[in-house]
């Protein structure tokens, strides 16, 4: 150590540092942890899995996109945008709870409403997942031509579905196909008008219809007939009634489920909504929900998890309370037919509004009612599935502000706790109850509409009567079905026996049937927009609800020419700029 010579030591030390540095370049090569590369997925198994990933967003959640206000804003059932805004139901709960819904309910949502941005994000995420399957499919080499066709068709079906969901709410949306990617930087896609968007959606479903097989490996998959039903629905939105009639008729006459079961209405109306009877002959395309699958209820119907009676084991939060008008709509005349002239609101159905639960209350036993009411609207004094008699305001969070009724269609039975409900969540409201995106009754009523618009009034009447016949199955009445004595309700339901000769009346009857058959299923607002009757229908609804004690509707006003669609989310309008200008044209009136 004594005779060292720094002339040598310094260069040695420095060069060893440099060598150390140079050798360590590979030290900075850290592969992606816990992730797969595109190369690993570019094969049949990988592409099939990407397709499943695209299906998985049908439940309205599952990605980080669109989660800000909770999954309720993106529920696959559209309970906010389709049903609450359509007059089926009140928001429910406390007035301040999820109060971003209130402006939507009153048709004056602003473009900065967080729910809208969230909805937009979630649905476009579904679009891109569908596109991703198509993109990677093109890179895969081991896929048979038949599978290429089928996978492409399924992906396009899903892409059509997600775009259709956007188009129903926002109207004028940008259509994003598989060429649009983040990497390519070509994502400033302009919106080219409602019709242009629907045309592309139609093309996707047409492709799916032309290329999908009838039978599929998995009941949850879209098959040829699901595509046909959707295509028919899109035609209805485009007012292409002849095309709609043709294809919807073929669905009704020839359609089969993915497992090969011929489409047919279930015997009992209530079976459509019973999780134990999911994927029946009536379910054309449903969102498959699962519970207790090790994900902490991430595949349950989270979007509807707030929509259960408040207090008790039925779940939580007391949202989505059926409106007075909806309950009144089930009143029928002596022939068991509904009041098409909207006089049903004149004398409201007796309810326990303003009567506390410890005071006596007997439900109306005289007024004739369509039996579907008690599978749609939970009323005090009437059996509530197998939960016993609905007790009234103790199941309602704040009756004075939200009304007396409870939702029913997506409920689970008490006997199904732990089987169709998830055990790992903060509420029982995470269930495996599927949401039927499109079911046979929906298709029949669309077909009936198409018939009316193309002059086939009698054919339309036949469809409506098919629906009513099923509803009139006494074995399916509340009470008997649950093994308890029927409450003394005067259920009446009759068929339209007289021939339909007048298109206007027929139209009214078909539309009314659609309202009560599909109530609380997220369709109503879109139908109203499609029919162009919001200005009269919904303004009358607001007035009537206000009169019956729903003070939230004070100041609510539907503006024709504006309120048909939600505003495009401001956040997205702001983000989609090219040369300092947004490529998105905002909807009229916003």
């Amino acid at each position, binding site marked *: 150590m004594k005779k060292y010579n720094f002339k040598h030591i310094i260069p040695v030390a420095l060069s060893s540092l440099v060598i150390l540095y140079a050798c360590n370049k590979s030290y900075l090569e850290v592969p992606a942890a816990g992730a797969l590369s595109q190369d690993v997925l570019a094969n049949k198994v990988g592409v099939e899995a990407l397709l499943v990933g695209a*299906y998985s967003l049908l439940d309205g959640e599952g990605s980080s996109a669109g989660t800000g206000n909770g999954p309720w804003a993106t529920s696959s059932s559209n309970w906010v945008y389709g049903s609450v805004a359509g007059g089926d139901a009140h928001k429910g709960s406390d007035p*301040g709870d999820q109060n*971003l819904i209130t402006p939507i309910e009153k048709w004056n949502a602003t473009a900065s409403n967080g729910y809208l941005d969230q909805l937009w994000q979630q649905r476009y995420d579904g679009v891109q997942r569908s596109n991703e399957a198509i993109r990677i499919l093109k890179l895969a080499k081991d896929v048979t031509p038949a599978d290429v066709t089928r996978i492409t068709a399924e992906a396009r079906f899903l892409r059509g579905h997600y775009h259709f969901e956007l188009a129903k709410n926002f109207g004028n949306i940008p259509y994003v196909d598989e060429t649009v990617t*983040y990497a390519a930087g070509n994502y400033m896609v302009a919106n080219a008008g409602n019709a242009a968007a629907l045309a592309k959606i139609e093309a996707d479903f047409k492709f799916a219809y032309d290329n999908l097989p009838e039978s599929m490996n998995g009941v949850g998959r879209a098959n040829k007939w699901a595509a046909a039903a959707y295509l028919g629905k899109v035609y209805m939105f485009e007012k292409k009634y002849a095309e709609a009639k043709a294809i919807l008729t073929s669905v009704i006459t020839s359609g089969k489920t993915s497992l090969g079961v011929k489409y047919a209405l279930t015997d009992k109306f209530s079976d459509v909504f019973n999780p134990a009877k999911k994927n029946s002959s009536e379910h054309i395309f449903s969102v498959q929900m699962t519970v207790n699958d090790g994900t902490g209820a991430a595949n349950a119907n989270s979007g509807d998890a707030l929509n259960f009676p*408040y207090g008790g084991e039925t779940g939580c939060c007391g949202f989505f309370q059926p409106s007075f008008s909806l309950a009144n709509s089930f009143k029928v005349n002596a022939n068991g037919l509904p009041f098409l002239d909207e006089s049903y609101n004149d004398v409201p159905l007796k309810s326990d509004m303003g009567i506390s639960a410890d005071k006596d209350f007997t439900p109306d036993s005289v007024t004739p009612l369509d039996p579907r009411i008690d599978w749609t609207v939970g009323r005090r004094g009437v059996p509530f599935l197998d939960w016993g008699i609905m007790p009234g305001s103790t199941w309602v969070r704040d009756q004075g502000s939200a009304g007396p009724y409870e939702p029913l269609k997506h409920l689970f039975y008490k006997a199904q706790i732990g089987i169709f409900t998830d*055990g790992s969540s903060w509420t029982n409201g995470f269930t495996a109850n599927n949401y039927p995106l499109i079911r046979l009754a929906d298709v029949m009523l669309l077909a009936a509409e198409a018939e009316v618009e193309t002059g086939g009034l009698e054919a339309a009447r036949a469809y409506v009567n098919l629906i009513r016949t099923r509803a009139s199955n006494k074995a399916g009445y509340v009470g008997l079905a649950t093994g308890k004595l029927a409450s003394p309700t005067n259920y009446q339901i009759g068929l339209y026996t007289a021939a339909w000769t007048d298109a206007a009346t027929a139209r009214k009857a078909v539309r009314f049937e659609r309202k009560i058959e599909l109530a609380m299923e997220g369709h109503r607002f879109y139908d109203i927009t499609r029919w162009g009757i919001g200005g009269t229908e919904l303004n009358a609804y607001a007035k009537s609800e206000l009169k019956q004690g729903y003070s939230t509707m*004070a100041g609510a006003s539907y503006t024709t020419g504006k309120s048909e669609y939600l505003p495009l989310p401001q956040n997205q309008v702001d983000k989609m700029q090219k040369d300092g200008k947004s490529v998105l044209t905002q909807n009229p009136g916003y």
Partner: protein
Amino acid sequence: MRKFLRLITVPLLLWGLVASAQSRTIKGQVVSANDGKAVAGATISVNGQKVSAISGDDGSFAVNASGNVTLSVKSVGFSGKQVQVPGSQNTVRVSLTEESSQLNEIVVTGYTAQKRKEITGAVSVVNVKDMKSVPSGTAEQMLQGQASGLTIIGSGSPGEPSNVFVRGITSFGNSTPLVIVDGVQSAPGDLSLFRDLSASDIESVQVLKDGQAAIYGARGSSGVIIVTTRKGRGKPSVTYESYYGVAMPKTGNVWNKLDPQGMADLYWLAAKNSQQDVNGVVTSGQYGTGTSPVLPDYIKYGTKSGYTGPVDLTKYNNNYSKGDIFLIVPANKKGTDWWDVMMDPAPMQSHTITASGAADKSTYLYSLNYLDQKGTLLNTYLKRYTARVNTTWNIKNNIRIGENLTVFYKENPRIGNNQEGNAINNTAWEQPIIPVYDAGGGFGGTAGSQLGNSSNPYANQMRAKDNKNFNWQVQGNVFAEVDFAKHFTVKTVFGGRLDNYHGFYHNYRSYENAENGSSNGYGEYGGYNNNYNWTNTLSYANTFKEKHSIKLMAGYEMLKVSGRQVGGSRVNYFSDNTDYLSLNTGSPIGQNNYSDYYKTTGNSILAKVDYAFNDKYLIGLNGRRDGSSVFGPDNRYGNFWSASAGWVVSQEDFFKNIKFVNSLKIRGSYGILGSISNVGALNQYTTYGGSGGSSYYDLNGTSNTTVLGFYATNLGNTATGWEKDKILDIGFDATVLNNKLDISFDWYKKTINGLLFQDQAPAVVGVGSQLPQVNIGDMQNTGIDLGLNYRDKINNDLSYTVGVNVGAYKSTIINIPGAAGFFEAAGTHNTGNQVRNAIGHPVGAFFGYKIAGIFQNAAEVASSATQDAAAPGRFKYVDVNKDGKINDADRTFFGNPNPAFTLGLNLGLTYKKFDVSTVIYGSFGNDVLNETRYFQDFVTQFQNSKSIPVLTESWLPADRSKPRAEWTAVNPNAKYPIADNESTFSNNGVINDFYKEDGSYVRVKQLSIGYTIEPSTLKRYGIDKARIYVQGANLFTLTNYSGLDPEVAGSSVSFGVDYGVYPPSKTFNVGVSLTF
């Protein structure tokens, strides 16, 4: 203890005897000429003889010499002194003159150390003694107010991490400074290296704030906190330091809550205000039907709410396995004080034993610390055991090796501080009519009508008492240093941290709440985080011609950050017995598990040059080239550098005559630094993957199984590169008034270009895939830091010190990713985001509608801009764009959570054997959004507790029989809007400035009085030195803020939003410090 002392002292005595056999021993003491205090660590050498000693903590030394000798006494910070000691004299007292306060203090400025007077950058040197005087379980809390330019926002939650920012927020992501403890670098954004240090182990803390932190390159942009731990010094000694105290929570109606009758009255008022009454008769599920409410005897009796009558206790059942739940819950008509139920005086204690010393060739320090800090909130605490071993050895004269190692173990159950729905929040929300326990011995809760949806905080915390988390952390370094060829030193340091955590938790199936879980459950988790750095440097230092002093350093460094975690949970346990619960004993149906891991690496070369001419002109240059695995191959390396210069004006001849100024140095620096804290390991990669919840799907309609699914999890960007932060700093350091006052001042401008932030691409790209961080967004902070230190002695008995730290900055966002020019943050429960980070505005600014007042009548509504749900009694908003209608475009920036300045004040006073010190911290001009009022001040925001003014000071209509639009006020000057059952645009349905408050405050962080006991009285007990003290912490806080506490932490992009903070409590301590 005595045995231990004997063990240590016997060999020492022997050593002394051996030494004295050859010559006499000169004993003495080194004191400061300024205040007469002992000077520890002074080197005493005997001229001409190879003998030296180091003074102990009491300044005493003993040195062997023969004949007449001259002692040479040196100590850092003092002028050296030669003392002649005649052969006849065996004792000596040496008083040293303080050279100049702090100028010779050694400051670690990144890989090297400098004397303070040589520094050309902006460095805050923390007065560690003041810092340690603050009793806290976390070191970062002690640092509050101790360094100018350092913002620390904490809470009263034991062990809770604080927000720490150097010179404001400089990133939209993580803005936490780099922490280096004994050369070990923290993982990005992680302060745990520093947080859990045992306070008494800390030797020094300095904060690098300017461009010179470029020596840390890509990790220096948010500032660098450099900490060193204590080394053994002086003669062997053992010290014992301890304090014990009690934190006293606030008492009284801290949330200003209504009592049960008030809640009932409010229900009536709101129903009437919403015209939901029938001729004044209101129906309630809890308070009956009538013109006025009646409190029931039972809030829940089976299925009934609001029940008064006979009860059958045998029907009671709160056990799901025994059939339907049947609760019997008496109404607490007097009201439950939930705050009082949850908060109790909390003891805190700390004990430290340190054994340390230095011999000729080695130093050693061993310490053990036990800290037990109970939280004032039930079942929150921090319990920590820490051990440390720091040693150095000199092998030959030119080789030094050593290590610093600390290990701690801690348990730290906390609530989520400042999170909606935490236990603190629930003390505000839970209604007073709810009893803690029900009639059957179960917990009371919100089950029942009109009781809200909060949960019983006592039940929650009692159920959580068996939840445990354990944390082991080992951190430290080993180093070797070799001097060679006179001027060269090569050093290698390997340092790192490994923390290992494990915990488990129970979920009970509650029955008492309005919203109850669907099953019981149990979960367990564990994992580790590891980071290390290996640093090799070569330094050269020389002085040419006595005037040119040059120091060079070059080095190479490798970094690695990695970790793994694993966990799982099961549900539906047969029993809640905690002894029974493990993952195995739960139901496999609904089981859940997860694991993940991460790893990033980096390497760097670095170099530094410091040149000084004649101690007058100083120049510093440094540079660093960083490589990081998080960037793609094309952008993997980034270069950073800084240049600085100093001019010691007081060394100039023309300055010699200015007696007023003892020293003055003007300095400036400019540097380019970076930050990669916010870039994830996967940023460069487009990856695919998926999980059961995110991409699997039940194609087969099974209701409980799913099929494998994938999606694009990450969209990569290989073009993303280094963030470049430019810092310009100009300042001066001066010592004036006869060395009594030190002043340090800096002005700075910090510009962050190419800020790394997540791409804000529109949703059409599929934003469920993680978008990469890209270089867009610029930010700028300009500000000043000022530090003052004044010390004076009135007479030999009385001296005092005053330290002031002021930091002020203005933050401006210059550019933002994406086309929109802003992004939002701080989501609320319902109404969206309250914070908008936008171009031209400070980071974290509050955004929404400004309230102009309350509409008083129809005429005012009519004459104002059109506004949705406008009505008398509701808010009237400012029509910002004056277009006659209130809409999105009228939202505006209404508050700024950044303080105008923060102030730290340290006062010390010594009188004879007494010492008094205090630390005061203040934050001024910062706004706070009191989000708790969103729930408390509006009837519609769940039926939880409401505040008193909602009932007593809200707008009241004169005649409710008229249509609402025609109402006029009974009390036109009401501060609160009308209490009604509608949540609309015109009350709480949108973000408005109703919740904004001035969050300025001044807090006495600690005030202590100590007494040092005469050594003579201690000797007989074997004690060399003793000090006892009493102390009060958080003695009082001056603020106008109406919430629990104005100190509100958050994230970089949204802070100052109070969702329910765990407030600091007044704490009273007694402490003792003994040296043996």
